[in-house]
């Protein structure tokens, strides 16, 4: 109960947090910083004690929480911290996070802003309901019908989201490549409706998931797609098992399996349903599904549909996963204590809102002992990370066969849509027959399938006339990501994410800054994605930059210059020395 506001555990956690410290140098640098942090933590705990109006010397022993323990000499504590850190660092490649440095006033002011916004929203609703009852009719029970959208649910949308809705759902036209044509729109009624003005602006695109730059209407892939459309048409108009299975599908599935490094693979026409319809086949009632707390909505939907018991572990934290595993295996199913039929651990390769790579090594290390099956959603990491672009396993040098189910989507790195599941033969045969999408949903359209196949061939360097192009894209992306993130950090922004991640989130916090950032970027001809609740926790609204291989250094320099300006304007450089 008396937990110290900024306890050592927190500070330590931020050390052991993200898995992407690459070079030895960085590890050393991180280690050097440790004493400083621990000193800070000591200072903080002392301050806290002063606030309790209890003398530190005398009474600390009675403090009920073990973490409040500044009695150990500073040196000893540093050593123990160091021990912890070194125990994890070399293996897991940890990184120093800057999160603990968020000034407390930023957090408080963010909460405060939300409070004001919500109070205003409620007051406006109250007054509105009183003076203009007609406009609020749909929120009330009418004529025996319950409102379809509940009052509270819609409050957020009407009063908060609508205010800034002009920064979402922005229409574009043409290819979402390194630059994109934004359609200008205006609203005459405070964002309730929008009208297109007919004006187009070409803007730098830091918003689309076009990691390897395959969003193209020219070049090898487009040519192949054109050829395939003319030969094989557009759509199969039926599901896979009911006549929608084409020979192109079989070939592409083989290609995917080769690329990912598994025995076999199945392609499904949508990434979202890949997760939501395959998970129910893997676990059912009596099984346990353990999910990372930040998993994507599609995984959550699949987990719910499965009927399995769901447990959650702390984001990217194998220690916590181990605790959850120990507890659930030893306790068995709720109430009956029967042993679980099977346990499936579901994680993502790259968390798209955090830009954070999965601590896959830590999780795989537990696999042998706890005998669970592992499901890794590589929606964002496939193609985008690893020396050969083969995802998180490639990056961390893990044999893909160690992961039971490798899922990924073609929406991000391949410029297509759809998803795949890769794994061993028996798993995939079962899915071919029983995945909901095989039976009840459309099979993959021909142009999309060919886009997948041709971009895969490029990445795998299988196209003689474009030798080395795939590799060049992978390297360019890695280069761009590292450069961009490094520069932002130098400027003093609070940037989340692992090193090497092509997604770079920058925390904005205050709700007012969310639309402001987007507007400022639009003014400067840049497209960026700002995200806020419900896609992120309410407090940590952010802007998310997605790097692409089609960005040139000039593009990035220009973008950085603008972001620098905006950062000063909106006072976003929280870590500026």
């Amino acid at each position, binding site marked *: 109960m008396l937990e110290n506001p900024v306890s050592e555990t927190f500070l330590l956690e931020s050390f052991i947090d993200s898995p992407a410290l690459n070079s030895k140098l960085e590890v050393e640098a991180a280690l050097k910083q440790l004493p400083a942090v621990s000193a800070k933590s000591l200072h903080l705990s002392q301050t806290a004690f002063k606030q309790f109006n209890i003398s530190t010397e005398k*009474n600390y022993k009675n403090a009920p929480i073990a973490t409040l323990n500044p009695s150990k000499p500073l040196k000893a504590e540093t050593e123990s911290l160091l021990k912890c850190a070194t125990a994890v660092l070399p293996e897991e490649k940890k990184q120093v996070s800057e999160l603990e440095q968020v000034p407390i006033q930023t957090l408080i002011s963010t909460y405060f802003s939300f409070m004001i916004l919500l109070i205003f929203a409620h007051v406006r609703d109250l007054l509105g309901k009183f003076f203009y009852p007609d406009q609020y009719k749909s929120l009330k029970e009418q004529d025996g019908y319950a409102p379809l959208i509940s009052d509270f649910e819609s409050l957020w949308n009407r009063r908060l989201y609508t205010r800034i809705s002009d920064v979402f759902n922005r229409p574009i036209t043409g*290819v979402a490549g390194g630059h*994109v044509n934004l359609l200008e729109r205006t609203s005459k009624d405070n964002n309730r409706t929008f009208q297109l003005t007919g004006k187009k602006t070409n803007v730098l695109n830091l918003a689309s998931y076009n990691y390897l730059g395959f969003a193209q209407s020219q070049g090898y*892939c487009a040519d192949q797609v054109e050829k395939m459309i003319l030969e094989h048409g557009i759509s199969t108009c039926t599901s896979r098992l009911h006549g929608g299975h084409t020979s192109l599908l079989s070939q592409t599935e083989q290609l995917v399996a080769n690329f990912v490094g598994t025995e076999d693979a199945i392609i499904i026409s949508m990434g979202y349903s890949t997760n939501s319809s395959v998970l129910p086949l893997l676990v059912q009632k009596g099984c346990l599904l353990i999910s990372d707390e930040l998993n994507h909505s599609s995984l959550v939907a699949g987990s719910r549909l499965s009927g399995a018991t769901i447990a959650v572990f702390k984001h990217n934290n194998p220690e916590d996963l181990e605790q959850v595993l*120990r507890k659930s295996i030893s306790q068995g199913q709720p109430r009956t204590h029967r042993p679980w039929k099977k346990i499936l651990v579901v994680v993502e390769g790259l968390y798209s809102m955090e830009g954070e790579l999965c601590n896959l090594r830590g999780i795989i290390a537990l696999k042998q002992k706890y005998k669970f099956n592992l499901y890794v959603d590589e929606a964002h990491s496939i193609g985008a990370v690893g020396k050969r672009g083969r995802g998180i396993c490639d990056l961390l040098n893990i044999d893909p066969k160690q992961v039971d189910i490798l899922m990924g989507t073609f929406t991000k790195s391949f410029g297509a*849509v759809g998803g795949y599941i890769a794994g061993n033969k028996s798993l995939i045969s*079962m899915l071919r027959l029983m995945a909901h999408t095989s039976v009840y949903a*459309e099979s993959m359209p021909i142009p999309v399938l060919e886009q997948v196949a041709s971009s895969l061939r490029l990445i795998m360097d299988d196209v003689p006339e474009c030798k080395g192009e795939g590799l060049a894209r992978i390297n360019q992306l890695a280069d761009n990501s590292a450069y961009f993130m490094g520069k932002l950090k130098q400027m003093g922004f609070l940037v989340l994410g692992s090193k090497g991640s092509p997604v770079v989130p920058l925390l904005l916090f205050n709700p007012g800054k969310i639309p402001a950032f987007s507007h400022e970027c639009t003014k400067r001809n840049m497209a960026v994605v700002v995200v806020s609740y419900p896609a992120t926790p309410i407090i940590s609204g952010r802007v998310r930059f997605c790097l692409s291989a089609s960005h040139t250094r000039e593009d990035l320099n220009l973008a950085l210059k603008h972001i620098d300006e905006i950062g000063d304007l909106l006072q976003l450089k929280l870590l500026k020395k």
Partner: protein
Amino acid sequence: MSLQIIKNTKIVLFGALSILLFSLAGSRANEDSYIKTGTQDNFDSQNPQNFFSIGARFVIRYIKSSYRNDPFRTFLEACLVFFIIWYVSRQKYRMNQTEVELSEKEVDELISEWKPEPLVRALTSVEQTILTNTPIINSPNTIIAELSTGTTAINFTSFDFLGIMNSEGAKAKAVQTLRNYGVGPCGPPGFFGTLDVHIELETTIAQFLKAEAAILYSQGMAVCVSVIPCFSKRGDIIVADEKVNFMLQQGIKLSRSKVYWYKHNDMEDLDRVLALANQNSSKKKGSIPRKFIISEGLFQYTGNIIKLNKVMELKNKHKFRLILDDSLAIGVLGSRGAGSTDHFNISAKSIDLLIGSLWGVFGGAGGFCCASKELIGHQRLSGLGYVFSAAMPAIMAITASDSIKRLEIDYILLLSALRKNISTLRNLLNEIDGVEILGDDFSPVIHVELKNEHYFKMIKSSNTGINTSDEISRNQMVEILCGITNEMQNSGVLVVQDIYIVDQEHNVPKPSIRILLSGGHSIEHLEKLSQELKKAIKV
């Protein structure tokens, strides 16, 4: 990681609160000097009992004295304490109340003893048969399809009811779109994935169906799974037809609402179930729940058509709303081909949520939902498949849009060709002995079920030595149908049996051969189909 921030900020706020409280307490304790002197030496954590009794004394004295000095402050402090207790207890809440205490060693033992089942079971022999007999197509999926075996066949497996898909014109347009838009839009609609063609397609759909507004979803399967949970939540009521398709079933499941099933297309039963649902819900206190009827327009599993006028009447009578999956009916039923609302001359605006598909008859991908502007706006924020998935490729959007426009112009020709084929084929099939032909006279989805006697006959004639005494299992039926469709494929007619995920369906239909008819089939195609069917089932 961000969740960590939020958690830690909670802790910060919480910490701040407790500091506030305890500094108050502390200052008060300082005033009451006798407490200090009385307790200081006895504070000994080694002896918890002592500690607690002293603590209790401390608290009681503290409350007494503070109440004397300033009752309001005591009240505030009490509020704070309650808040903290509530907060802490809320965090500690666990589902598992029947936990057993175990030592580390026992835990380790249990872990090493635990044996999980294999991740997937092996396929049964029937399942294997189905899988190996899945036809693979090696050409555009048009009326005549080339199979991977090298033969060609007349194709009765495509939802392209109007026979307009994969035409040369459509292909040329697709190539043109490819050159303007590339393939994938590389993002969900909310994050720069909305293309101008999506907006146009939404308008085209709404105009065609005469609905207020429409929203696109990028895969057919995602529509129901998104729309239903978006409006119907835990505690709400769903009354659904027992034969609705699997996607609707999944949507219903995901919504976690209370479900009542009524007999397939049986209006009396619907009336009864609606009354029952109302009765049950009126027993509960509080505000009335949202109540929905869920049905299909043209049923995929039976080929029947909803009695929409009656459903509308009952829905109004019992104050339910209607979620209508018109995926198969749109493009087929009605004078303009605008679906079951058109068929019954009911305004699409009076259907609360109207679901349609674009991947079937319109040859694109995905599907849509039509509703009032407000409900569409709500879906753009809360429809999971819309918010969290990539937008539809422009090629598919334009293909669908062009098909709808073509139907708007050519509906008389296209629909009459289809209807003529439907009645011709139904007449032909009705003449065959030993089979049951399901579905409405307007339905291009034709399920052919073998009668039980006929299964026996076939088993006998094949002489496989199976005991044919009393009953045949589902697996036997499936295997026989597999043989029939195989034989038909070899002689140039591509039909498939309808496959289900048997153990996950709510009410799995009897195995059947599913024939999907198109306006593009010629009379000869239909005759050939019925001949081959006769031959294959050996009558």
